[in-house]
């Protein structure tokens, strides 16, 4: 079980790193984040990562689709999915392996930004708690985005469709806080409940609420479960 998951993840990671797309995406995002860091910190004159991390999470609306659109759509298009599904490999192993590969890539991208806190430590006196909590928040949120993207990628053979579906889904979750202000009653509280902005808000302040962590984890588990079902459903068409 674990060995199969790791085999799929390892292949995925290798593929990420030999494709130019991954390098270009990483380079561009690191540049973008560096740029955000460069304008926000001198502007606020505060050794605080909170505004930077909040902006990070916006850029993930773009990074999420880009990192996940290929995952299952490409395998389905080139026929390698047919090969994998006729091997002694369970659907859940395939899905978890793919997901793990994508998460690894996300972690690599985040590690590349760790020079932000290091710079703050060197030249200022930041609060470490909120920075750690903020990074955990960014990671959790990113992982939820990847799970949603993986699910979209399992629905189609077309990477563009997967990317668009992911982007719009993420954007709607993102904007649902704003939506809740227009809506009233139960609809408003539902919109509020699924709002990623709302969930993420407190984390860079150093508040790790179990409810928020559970929220992100349940998105991840639900999406991975549904993805597994979608992949398995191919067998029964």
């Amino acid at each position, binding site marked *: 079980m674990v060995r*199969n998951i790791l*085999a*799929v993840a390892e292949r995925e990671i290798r*593929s990420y790193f030999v494709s130019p797309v991954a390098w270009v995406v990483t380079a561009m995002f690191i540049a973008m984040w560096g740029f955000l860091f460069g304008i926000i910190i001198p502007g606020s004159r505060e050794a605080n990562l909170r505004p930077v991390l909040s902006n990070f999470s916006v850029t993930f609306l773009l990074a999420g689709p880009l990192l996940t659109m290929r995952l299952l759509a490409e395998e389905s298009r*080139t026929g*390698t999915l047919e*090969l994998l599904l*006729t091997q*002694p490999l369970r659907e859940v192993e395939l899905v978890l392996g793919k997901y793990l590969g994508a998460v690894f890539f996300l972690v690599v991208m985040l590690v590349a930004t760790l020079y932000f806190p290091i710079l703050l430590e060197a030249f200022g006196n930041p609060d470490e708690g909120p920075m750690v909590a903020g990074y955990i928040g960014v990671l959790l949120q990113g992982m939820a985005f990847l799970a949603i993207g993986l699910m979209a990628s399992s629905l189609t053979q077309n990477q563009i469709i997967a990317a668009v579906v992911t982007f719009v889904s993420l954007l709607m979750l993102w904007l649902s806080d704003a939506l809740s202000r227009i809506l009233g009653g139960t609809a408003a509280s539902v919109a509020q409940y699924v709002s990623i902005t709302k969930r993420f808000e407190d984390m860079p302040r150093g508040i790790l609420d179990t409810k928020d962590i559970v929220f992100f984890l349940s998105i991840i588990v639900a999406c991975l479960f549904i993805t597994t079902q979608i992949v398995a459903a191919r067998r029964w068409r």
Partner: protein
Amino acid sequence: MIEVEKLSKVYGRIPAVSDVSFSVAKGEILGFLGPNGAGKTTTMRILTGYMPATSGRATVAGYDIFKQSLEARRHIGYLPETVPLYPEMSPRNYLQFMGKIRGLDSRTRRARIDDVADKCKIGDVLDRLIGKLSKGYRQRVGLAQALLGDPDVLILDEPTVGLDPRQIVETRQVIKNLAGAHTVILSTHILPEVSMTCERVIVINRGRIAADDTPENLQRRMQGADEIEVDVRGPSEAVQAALRGIPQVTKVHERRDGAESHVFMVECELGTDVRELIASTIVERGWGLRELRPRSVSLEEIFVQLVTAEPSTA
């Protein structure tokens, strides 16, 4: 090794495979022959557990492919019609990955990769990128992948399609050498291909089995040495003697002894059409000729499609 019972698959309302039954013995090489769209790929996909059948049963190596899918899949090596490769990987890494998924430990993997690379003659490209390889090499990397787990059953969907003539010959030789140790099902729409590699052929047309025979018999039938069924009212012994008197006729036997007439199967030499001769022979002697027809019209129709599909390889 493989048992298939009344397998059917319906896409929406279009039947792709209807009521297909056959079995393959251990070590046998079976060819699936049929025009494009006949149901070969569908049957193979069902056997490999990629898609379910609408009805029917199948077992591979003793495991039910629907109920014990994972176990059955462990015993199958599969080369789909579009060779499933990762262009950004090298054949070695690709085979390593497939070996891991098949549960081979690292030492076995290395040994098996050397073995299949040797068998499929891809040793000199193992460390290049698959995306840069020629079609022939890719096809053989795909074949190497199917062989990697040393599976009891190999299912190869059009393994020689798109190769040049020399590669076709080599690939056929590789497949032929697999007989005995492996049970092989391969599909093709080229008749000469089965006669060169297979011991047995199942002809599929429109989702149904049209014939199940040795390649020699099929080839003979295709070339016109077909049997002619003759229904005659007359004395059995005398009619048989008269029919044997026709020079091109090689064999005559009585198939059915009806109340009023006798049905004879008449075999004749390749490329001759003796129907008119038979008719006149019988009529001249005053017997009643009630029916005269070649036995397998439907096969002929299929073979026309098969033969015209790729005459150059014949």
